[in-house]
């Protein structure tokens, strides 16, 4: 079975000699929910731009469901739906027309396009707004409009570039549910996001790109297993001014009633609780200092920055 997306030795050097991609290769399986992460300027949007024919590549090849983007452009493009990072619709057009026109560009007859537009706009909570001009929508609605537009031709591969940027948590969660549902129905999804908990919650596989190179490409659970140390924040009932000592554990006092505790894979948090109980300190709540993926991401991309600085 061909991969949903297969990228081989893809390079991109812009006219100002900035090398955005340094020969990346990537295979994404059909049906996957894939995270493509990286810091700003890493090359994510360039890679997506090339796949979606919005950026000219310098060299390399891209295949979408086995169709080469150079030689079988029509077939390859028909498979892709793109939700870009920036709003790129005509703000002076009613949202229903935006969806219908997009379907038209893919050669979908108006009757069929109308049925799909109605279904998508209802699923994404925009049906009541269908006659409104796009400029009248809120930020979250505009994001959902772009998702509806990207799905109107029923693509087999949906690429989402920061789809929940600037969206409140309630709408973001409802978008997650919607995306999980269409992924279950068979649509392969590639997600780039700065909300790493979003990638952790949704994606099964992940690639991290930094400075135009893929520095990690693996399963999400394999990557998370690499996290040897997790940091927990403990809120205490009592106020203290001295850090409690627990042998083998690195504990710091963030404020008189908040502790930060680092736990590695060989340790258990029970030992910390036991020791705190013995010291008559009571923990009222506990949370991760940061999202697990975020910790890994910072370490991976941070390490490379250090290596570059040393090199």
């Amino acid at each position: 079975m061909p991969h949903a997306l297969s990228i081989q030795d893809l390079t991109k050097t812009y006219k100002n000699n900035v090398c955005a991609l340094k020969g990346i290769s990537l295979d994404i399986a059909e049906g996957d929910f894939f995270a493509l992460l990286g810091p700003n300027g890493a090359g994510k949007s360039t890679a997506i731009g090339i796949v979606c024919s919005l950026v000219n590549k310098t060299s390399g090849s891209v295949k979408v469901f086995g169709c080469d983007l150079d030689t079988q452009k029509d077939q390859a493009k028909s498979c892709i739906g793109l939700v870009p990072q920036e709003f790129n619709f005509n703000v002076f057009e009613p949202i229903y027309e935006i969806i219908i026109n997009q379907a038209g560009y893919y050669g979908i007859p108006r009757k069929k396009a109308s049925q799909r537009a109605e279904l998508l706009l209802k699923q994404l909570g925009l049906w009541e707004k269908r006659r409104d001009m796009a400029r009248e929508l809120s930020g979250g609605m505009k994001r959902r409009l772009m998702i509806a537009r990207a799905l109107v031709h029923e693509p087999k591969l949906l690429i989402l570039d920061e789809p929940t940027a600037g969206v409140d948590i309630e709408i973001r969660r409802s978008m997650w549910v919607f995306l999980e549902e269409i992924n279950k129905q068979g649509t392969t999804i590639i997600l780039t996001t700065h909300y790493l908990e979003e990638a952790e919650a949704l994606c099964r596989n992940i690639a991290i790109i930094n400075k135009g190179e893929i520095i990690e490409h693996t399963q999400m659970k394999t990557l998370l297993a690499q996290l040897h140390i997790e940091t927990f924040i403990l809120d205490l009932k009592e106020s203290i001014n001295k850090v409690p000592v627990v042998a083998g554990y690195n504990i710091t006092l963030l404020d008189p009633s908040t502790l930060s505790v680092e736990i590695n894979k060989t340790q258990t948090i029970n030992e910390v609780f036991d020791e705190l109980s013995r010291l008559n300190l009571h923990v009222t709540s506990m949370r991760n200092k940061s999202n697990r993926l975020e910790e890994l991401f910072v370490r991976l991309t941070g390490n490379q920055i250090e290596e570059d600085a040393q090199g």
Partner: protein
Amino acid sequence: MTLEQQFIAFKTIVVKEILRFSRIWVQTIVPAVITTSLYFLIFGNLIGSQLGDIQGYSYVDYIVPGIILMSVITNAYGNVVSSFYGHKFQHHVEEMLVSPMPNTILLAGFVVGGVARGIVVGSVVTLVAMFFTKLHFEHIFITLAVVILTAILFSLAGFVNAVYANSFDDISIIPTFVLTPLTYLGGVFFSIGMLSTFWQNIALFNPILYMINAMRFGMLGVSDINLVVAFIIIILFLVMLFSFCLYLLNKGIGLRS
């Protein structure tokens, strides 16, 4: 894409373009009516009545074909340059670029949109002209062919301008500093027979001269230029511009980084 799908894509762009200029008719159609009415009134009736006949026609009759074609040129060009640059500026051209629609269809859609506006405005100006003089149509099919070919040619030219434009200034520079002077010097208001030999030879380098004279032949049956030469020049420019537009689209110049 199948031919049927390509036709749907083409129709989508054309309908969208026609709706766009129809919705803003005060900006797209009314100004041409006012300007040409003033031309007919001042140059045609007031000044023209003081002048003698040109090639057997009163001055107002003589300038009608040029003024109609001038409005077609300006509006066909203006429609494509402003619409396509708007698509670039707001990035919604990306809606088309990500789709499997062939570049020829994309180009044809915008060009037909420009032709539609050129013909609508040209028709309105023709109606306005009827208030000032009795219209002649010596060769109706030649007239229509010139109008349509000229509208296509200047829609393509507008497309090139939009592709290279990086700001709203860039879409007004060519119409102001190139298109308008060439149109005025292309014989809308005069016959090149009135010029000295030197300036007649210079005028022959102006492609708009051939279009206006072909239009004048269609309506009045008189022309400073051989009709066959005029059509060859129009078609030559049309083929060159069409090929150039497709080259720009295929290379992604001004559209893809």
